[in-house]
């Protein structure tokens, strides 16, 4: 299992860099990368389900380590929710539910 320790990176300059690890909830349209970790530790929840349950749902949809993700579209208000390409399918999710998905950006980020 991946145990990469990702700093929650906020600075926009850093997130643009190739190889930087960011939360999917922070990614913007055009950014893509490979998932390196799917966690169950989002502390600012208020989700209707436990974080472990959210993690299982993300995994079931195919948000697994090694999967390819690209943010395709963003909603009109607050850039939320997001539509992503996840390997060969398309998935829509809210940013708040995407915080525990960490991805390593690849070089082609727009």
């Amino acid at each position, binding site marked *: *299992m991946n145990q990469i320790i990702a700093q929650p990176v906020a600075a926009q300059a850093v997130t643009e860099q190739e190889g930087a690890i960011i939360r999917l909830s922070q990614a913007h349209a055009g950014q893509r990368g490979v998932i390196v970790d799917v966690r*169950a530790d989002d502390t600012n929840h*208020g*989700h*209707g*389900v436990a974080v*472990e349950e*959210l*993690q*299982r*749902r*993300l*995994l*079931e*949809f*195919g948000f*697994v*380590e*090694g999967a390819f993700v690209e943010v*395709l*579209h*963003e*909603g*009109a*208000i*607050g850039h*939320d*929710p997001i*539509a992503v390409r996840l*390997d*060969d*399918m*398309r*998935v*829509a*999710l*809210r940013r*708040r*539910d995407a915080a525990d998905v960490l991805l390593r950006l690849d070089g082609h980020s727009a």
Partner: protein
Amino acid sequence: MSEAVLPATRVALVGNPNSGKTALFNALTGSRQKVANYAGVTVERKEGQAHTADGRTLYVLDLPGTYSLRARSPDEEVTRDAVLGRLAGEQSPDVLICVADATNLRLVLRLILELKQVGRPMVLALNMYDIAQRQGLRIDLDSLSRDLGCPIVTTVATRKRGIEDLVAKVDELARSGALSQDNAWTAPDASDIRSAHREAQRILKAYVRPPEHPDTLTGKVDAVLLHPVAGLAILFSLLFLMFQAVFSWAGPPQDLIEAGFGALGQLVGAVLPDGLLKSLIVDGAIAGIGSVLVFLPQILILFFFIILLEDFGYMARAAFLMDRIMGGAGLHGRAFIPLLSSFACAIPGIMSARVIDAKRDRLTTILVAPLMTCSARIPVYTLIIGAFIPDRTVWGFASLQGLVMFGLYAAGILSALGVSFVTRRLFWRGAVEPFLMELPTYKAPSAENVARNLLLRASIFISRAGRIIFPLTIAIWVLSTFPGPPAGATGPAIDYSFAGRLGHLFQPLLAPIGFNWQMTVALIPGFAAREVAVAALGTVYAVADAENATGALGSTLATHWSLATALSFLAWYVFAPQCASTLAVVKRETNSWLWPAVMFVYMTALAYIAAFAVYQTAAAFGAG
């Protein structure tokens, strides 16, 4: 073994949502289908029959789509329990058919791995195989079948290709005496899901060569339909078109249904002698059924659009576009479809709230659905607006009457958003369920499937009208008829009935909102369907044929009511709790009397408060 002693085979269809499972079910069973509910839950149970080449029967059960046996919604629980043979009142399936979209195998492979643990004989149907071939996707069927340990059949459900082959394979498996092995399935945890994904990845890599011409259409269409500005503009244009269609196309057939039931009533009335039986059949049964069936054209037109957009793959996009807008009020993006349906009638709206898998979100949606202005309120609105709001133009272009109508619709929508916001705070303490949704690839809808689905919706609505709404209208007829007026009575008969007495009893309560006793009495038959209140007002004011001659009733009301009273009545009808059918459907859908009770209480309270505020304000301005 002779054919006769071999019992019929029970088959269950399992698969991801959007895998064409329902189309395959239709192709397998044709018109030999039965739709009901599973015992104790309001999940639709669809069963049909297929026949093998030598005439043996397969009973095919269409289970709700799921990504995992680890159920998250009532629908998915049914799938899990049916597959495991734990569903009360259901026999265990002999053979499972796992339906897969051949162009999107990754997630279904993980489901197949779970299904294999269950240990039942299984056939994999690779559906939409024509699209896979067109994309140049190569699947090594023999090796995949060997690796998965189950036969594979390629199908194109919409063109009925591969169906005979599938039936033959299922039959072969059932006859081979392949028995269910012990169930080794347990709910997977995070690491199980991860390793299942790795296994799925290995299988994909070994036997599936990626498409040479992958689908690029979906991406191109999404660039427009999911665009933050253009996407919303298209969505709202579609909505506008739908409303135009619902209210203009439905007019002629509605008139026909009304005229038909009117003629039927007259015909029966002419044959039967005067008396209670005639009143029961004509005023109770025929008028009651007619007042509900008159909404059938609107409901069909609305569902036509919804099914078409759903099959095309657009509804998930609509939910994406609306999620944040509705999320501000604490609603799920998927609540969009049920709330939209509620503009025709809250009943199909509440029924379609089943698409929301999160229980709290579904309940919130059900609770606010009746606040959407259903078409049963329209006759009431037109009557009062026509009688009291002057027909003049304001700001140079807008009709004042139209503005009031628009205002009433807007008041309904805003109060729905407000109530859902409060519900979220009050009942769910701000907890928000996750929103995760596949955006399926776009597909051309098949005319046959749209027609079949539409027929299904129509038959569900009609049978519901028969089983729930009909007894209610009879009950309300009894209330409004008994006891009859004493000999020599001068007032309208309803005044002496239970309904009339109730009206007089409650009148002091409704006096602060400006309702007189006639209005209070009219509210009671209005429980059958909101627009019946118009006919009831006609009865108490002794205006014959009030529903067809609103002009005559309107002028009567204009002389009896003050403007403040009329406005108060409109405000009451924005909320108008009295729709027995809606309450009955909520009881069925939530399996509890709690939620219809909550709904009735909050809607009555809002109706009273709104009517009170409007009446007192208008009276203070001298309109009392």
